[in-house]
């Protein structure tokens, strides 16, 4: 398989880079070692578009975060991904912490973050009545938003594929050689050649760079556990509530999600194995203890799931974006930890600029379409809209996931979409079937049935998330 560009890693960064490059008349492959996109840190993070006051002024993180906030609006509009501007609060829990807020305010202003202000106890309580007793004040960041990171990634890949990019799943890159001005990638899907390689491999970006002899990227795997609470808890707070940041990151947050749940987390612990996403008792305990300091009404009785993600923390403490010193046609987009999601559109724009520079300019496609059509979201429709939809296609009249009100039609759409769902978790992330309070207890087997039918395979070949994650074995006696 021959390409002009191979992007390694289909997380939010790889997805949006591929999408930006798909406007040009070049052959692009997006390589993903898993059975789906958004399988790494992208599917397990805080889901916040940060205002940009946290990063050190002058850093790439600061610059791309602030630019990312601007671009995110256009990206989400074109890709039809919900973006909710709910604002953020960094809360001080003692008078000693108040100077931290002023420091963050100054840093934010230096980074060009608009509308920042510090408020006292009363104003804070008026904004968030459920805030903890000990809160004395907060930094208010009105430009902070929430977005669903995997929805954004899936939409980006879908749009890139519609515009001609190729999405290759289960494609782990094992070796890279540079021959006759081209990279030859040995992968689990065979040999792939490309003139340019973009390294967006997340926690594994250091390992991928070292395949061409670039050992400059040092990634520490920073593990974080989260709780997700039932939708009945989604309105406990309206803003994203942070505590004062520490050396290990922004600390534990409590925030509504765009889908109406409440997310609590993350813990932060450095670990060795980038693929180890097992939650830990210590981590889960820690986030709960911290969360109830911010919002005492947070109760684990309402937890519907817990999960964890691994951030790619670069020892240099800043994003690593640009041509490798070993080979300039190998572009790193590495060490993307927080505010990586917020910065992703700006990272894509930056890599696009680098590509234009390296190639001396690229021809635009005449038929490029930046819009990903909005998927059917039955749960958000009025009675009249629903009636009309079902009249057009009866599959929208069959509710498969009762907790989230997801129809069979939406699941079929998700399977047949460009770069569509191939497993149960893929259906879940595209449609929300199985995301609700019963966690797929009732609809899980129906989703397996629909996947098997639509993909034309027996039920026991359907997996939870690819690989050996089979759900059923042999037939009963």
């Amino acid at each position, binding site marked *: 398989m021959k390409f002009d560009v191979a992007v390694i890693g289909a997380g939010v960064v790889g997805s949006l880079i591929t999408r930006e490059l798909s406007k040009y008349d070049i052959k692009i492959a997006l390589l993903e070692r898993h059975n789906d996109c958004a399988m790494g840190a992208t599917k397990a993070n805080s889901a916040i578009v940060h205002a940009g006051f946290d990063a050190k002024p002058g850093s790439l993180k600061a610059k791309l975060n602030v630019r990312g906030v601007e671009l995110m609006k256009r990206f989400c509009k074109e890709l039809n991904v919900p973006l909710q501007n709910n604002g953020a609060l960094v809360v001080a829990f003692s008078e000693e912490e108040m100077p931290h807020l002023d420091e963050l305010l100054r840093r934010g202003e230096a980074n060009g973050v608009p509308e920042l202000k510090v408020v006292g106890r009363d104003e804070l309580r008026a904004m968030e009545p459920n805030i903890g007793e000990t809160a004395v004040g907060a930094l208010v960041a009105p430009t902070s938003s929430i977005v669903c990171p995997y929805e954004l990634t899936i939409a980006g890949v879908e749009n890139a594929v519609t515009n001609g990019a190729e999405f290759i799943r289960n494609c782990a890159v094992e070796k890279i050689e540079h021959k006759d001005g081209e990279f030859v990638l040995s992968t689990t899907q065979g040999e792939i050649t490309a003139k340019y390689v973009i390294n967006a491999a997340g926690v594994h970006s250091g390992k991928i760079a070292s395949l061409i002899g670039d050992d400059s990227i040092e990634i520490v795997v920073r593990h974080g556990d989260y*709780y*997700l609470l039932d939708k009945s808890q989604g309105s406990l707070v309206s803003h994203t509530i942070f505590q004062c940041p520490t050396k290990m990151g922004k600390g534990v947050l409590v925030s509504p999600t765009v889908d109406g749940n409440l997310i609590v987390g993350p813990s932060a612990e450095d670990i060795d194995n980038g*693929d*180890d*996403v*097992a*939650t*830990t*008792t210590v*981590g*889960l305990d820690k986030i709960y203890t911290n969360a109830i300091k911010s919002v005492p009404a947070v109760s*684990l*009785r309402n*937890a*519907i*799931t*817990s*999960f964890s993600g691994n951030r790619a923390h670069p020892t240099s403490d800043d994003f690593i974006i640009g041509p490798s010193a070993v080979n300039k046609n190998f572009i790193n987009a590495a060490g993307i930890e927080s505010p990586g999601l917020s910065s992703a559109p700006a990272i894509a724009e930056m890599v696009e600029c680098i590509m234009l520079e390296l190639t001396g300019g690229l021809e635009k496609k005449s038929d490029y379409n930046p819009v990903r059509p909005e998927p059917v979201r039955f749960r958000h429709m009025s*009675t009249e809209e*629903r*009636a009309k939809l*079902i*009249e057009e296609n*009866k*599959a*929208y*009249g*069959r*509710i498969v996931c*009762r*907790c989230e*009100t997801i129809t*069979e039609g939406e699941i079929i759409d998700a399977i047949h979409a460009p770069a569509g769902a191939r497993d149960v978790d893929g259906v879940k992330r595209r449609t929300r079937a199985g995301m609700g*309070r*019963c*966690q*797929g*207890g*009732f609809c*899980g*087997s129906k989703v397996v*049935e629909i996947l098997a039918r639509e993909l034309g395979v027996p*039920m*026991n070949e359907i*997996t*939870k*998330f*690819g*690989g*050996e*994650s*089979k*759900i*059923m*074995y*042999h*037939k*009963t*006696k």
Partner: protein
Amino acid sequence: MFDYDLVVVGGGPAGMAAALKAREEGVEKIVILERAETLGGILEQCIHTGFGLHYFGEELSGPEYAGRFIEQVEATDIDVYTDTMVLNISEDNVVTAVNNSEGLMQFKAIAVVLAMGCRERPRGALSIAGSRPAGIMTAGTAQKYVNIDGYMPGKKVVILGSGDIGLIMARRMTLEGAEVKVVCELMSYSGGLQRNIVQCLDDFGIPLRLSCTVVKTHGKDRLEGVTIANVDERLQPIPGTEEYIECDTLLLSVGLIPENELSKDVGVELDRVTNGPVVDEYRETLQPGIFACGNVLQVHDLVDYVTEESQIAGKGAADYIFGKKKGGTYINTKGVDGVRYIVPQRVNIEGKENLKLYFRVGQVFKGAKVVVECDGNILSSRKKVKLAPGEMENVTITPEMLENMTKDSEIIVRIEQ
């Protein structure tokens, strides 16, 4: 808009019994809305026997028990919509539902019976640390894979929770050739029926470990093992007691939650202990004309009691439809000293018939007395050999007992050791 006297939400044993009773009482236009492809509810996947001993005096399988009611429903002109999901109920009793043949439908009702059943508590509610591979599911989901879809969801099994579905699935998986290594129960007693412990575990040599839980799951793609540990009196894992057990499947039987999302939407008040609606002795919720019965009201141990309760709701709905004024003065019931809850929560002191108060205890009692009292007077006292949280109990209240009660009285049920 379709006009009905009674809309029944849910066509499991509760919904069918309520609809049939209402019909027997003379209600004409009745419709049952069922989300599954057939009537029968969860009984359809319960292919083991043990149903109907109280109600029919014989031992039936789940589908057989359901079948008797399905036949009766089919013999009437009660309308049935299957594969039909109710989306909401408005305050003026308009039920909106959807399916893939008729599309969106609205049913205007004089009375509504809520009979949506319950769901299983998922893993997420337990905060078990570890990876999230395939092979971790609720016992009921596994039951559907095995009994309905005909596929085995695992070969080496650990079961967490000794609720009845977990016990039944321990036997079912064993009969299908799987190895069930252990059933772990967090509490110091099982929440399941004694007869299920004997017939599903003891008879197959499957160990039941009490005061023990799963503290970690292992495995990347498919489950490879779990770590279990003993717990102390505060139910916290005891360090040093961890034990690794190799398995590819973890089945969860850790509690059932009444599915009251529709009830909440229409403003029905719920009981914090049962997670079901607050009802009076006719099973009417605090929302006039809306009744509830079966597992949506309280999680039952035996379907026979579901049938009994649903007939009361069906009768109550019929009376409401015919405008038979029930009037009266309502007082509260209250469970104390080991009694976790009582259904119904409200009783009419002008009632003219015997009524039963159903309850569950919070721990195991041996040789204790169940005492019913009101305003300091003991109304009844009965010694029981054994009381266990897994078994629903009841006491009878007679019209004579109600005679001297006033609007400020409270009926108290307690356990005396």
